[in-house]
């Protein structure tokens, strides 16, 4: 039996949840007047949209894996070691999160117009207006988010567990792999899911660094922008629906896998 006082507390918890859910559902509902089934199928089967789906899934996955590969050691180092200038370095790493993606894209464009960027290009590694640019733009936007999430996850794990593993004969690498990483599993999964979601939705930096070429660099968000650019609301709506369905399916599947199908 829930007491009257607790009932108020429960109400205060449920009200924002229900309100937020209704608000998000109403956003989806706003699409319906513009949604046309025939446009949906013709859009879904068009080569440029299929290419945008492929590019979005591929680039978001690669950029997320790259970001995680960098973020795990960086976050661990920031969490465990004290060194000169740590706070400054920690703040510098946050800069991409403070900058608007368009500004980041512009900085990237400037970087690849320097001697270094032009040398890279001569070596055959082209970034601007290529799919590499899409991946790099997404990576730049998400890597700081991944580091922040992972660092707080490592901060929550007491170093004593690693110390115990070391006294039992584990090397630093082995104690990290066998003790810390499994304990940070939930944090790593959360970082993976959030950064992938952020990567697939990335637009500002991507469009600035990689442009909008259909079949080459156009992602789903870019295609939505292009559909809006033709005053074609129906197609934009279909693309929004595709992006929502794809992202929802991948995120739900990841969550279910991570939690062993717990609700």
């Amino acid at each position, binding site marked *: 039996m829930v007491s009257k006082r607790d009932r108020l507390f429960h109400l205060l918890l449920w009200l924002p949840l229900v309100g937020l859910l209704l608000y998000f559902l109403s956003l989806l509902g706003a699409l319906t007047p513009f949604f046309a089934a025939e446009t949906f199928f013709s859009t879904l089967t068009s080569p440029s949209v299929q290419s945008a789906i492929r590019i979005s899934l591929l680039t978001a996955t690669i950029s997320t894996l790259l970001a995680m590969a960098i973020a795990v050691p960086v976050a661990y180092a920031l969490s465990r070691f004290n060194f000169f200038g740590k706070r400054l370095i920690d703040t510098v790493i946050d800069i991409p999160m403070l900058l608007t993606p368009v500004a980041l894209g512009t900085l990237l464009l400037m970087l690849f117009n320097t001697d270094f960027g032009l040398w890279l290009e001569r070596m055959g590694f082209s970034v601007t207006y290529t799919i590499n640019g899409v991946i790099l733009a997404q990576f730049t936007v998400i890597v700081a988010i991944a580091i922040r999430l992972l660092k707080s996850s490592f901060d929550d794990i007491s170093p004593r567990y690693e110390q115990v593993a070391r006294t039992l004969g584990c090397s630093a690498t082995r104690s990290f792999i066998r003790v810390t990483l499994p304990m940070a599993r939930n944090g790593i999964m959360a970082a993976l899911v959030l950064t992938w979601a952020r990567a697939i939705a990335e637009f500002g930096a991507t469009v600035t660094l990689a442009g*909008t*070429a259909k079949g080459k660099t156009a992602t789903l968000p870019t295609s939505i922008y292009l559909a809006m650019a033709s005053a074609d609301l129906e197609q934009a709506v279909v693309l929004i629906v595709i992006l929502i369905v794809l992202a929802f399916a991948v995120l739900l599947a990841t969550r279910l896998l991570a939690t062993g199908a717990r609700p």
Partner: protein
Amino acid sequence: MVRSLQITILLLAFCSLQTPCFAEVTVFAGSASKPPLEEAAELYQSETGIEIFLHFGGSGAMLNQLRLSRKADLFIPGSPDYMLKAQRFNLVDASSEKILAYLIPAINVLKGNPKNIHGLADLGRPGIRVGIADPSGVCVGLYAVEIIEEHHLAERVRPNITANVESCSKTASLIPLQAVDATLGWREFEQWNPDQIESILLPPEQIVRLAYIPAAIATHARNVKEAVEFLAFLTSSRAKAIFAKWGYLTSEEQARVYAPHARIGGEYRIPEGW
């Protein structure tokens, strides 16, 4: 060991995404020409096998991207103002410039004209929501401000401007979204979405300047031969037919019907305060 192997595989996958070498043309274009340019590029690509990569955005944004990346072979802004700027920065070969189509300033409203907007004066009526493009970065916004200022309507129309958007195409989208009652855009917007957009033509004497869509080879073009050929195709009668299908006027004589005495091209300096 396993981890380093995984990273190596990832890096290999990343590097394998390099663009292969084949005949291609990269175009930076203002979105004023998006629908016909896409269709013309598709036709050209299917006939020649040369890949045409179109990057669209506001003309100012595309000009900046051209400055920073020097990656385009062809530059097609929405109006001559941005072509002149590109020439000043030595980003395009001025001698290669061609005109693809003409644009006529007009008022755009929702199909059926529910707010009974018939001329510039109506944009100053109380309660009318007007949208324009950002005049400092988008051609159509620049022309809108020029018309408003030229006819001394700034005092009446400016309070009604509720939307100021960052690209030509977004200006056109404001009408189907019903975000505003009218936009000062191009006559050609109607053909982009004829079910929802209606263009109200301005009397010839109110049209100060006609715009055109210029195209020129970029100074740092890497595929000059292909770009020259594609540009020649864009000015051919077949490409002109595509532009005409989308409601664009492809000759000065056609454009002159709407504004016999208007200036064509040139630049306009936005007055302070806009």
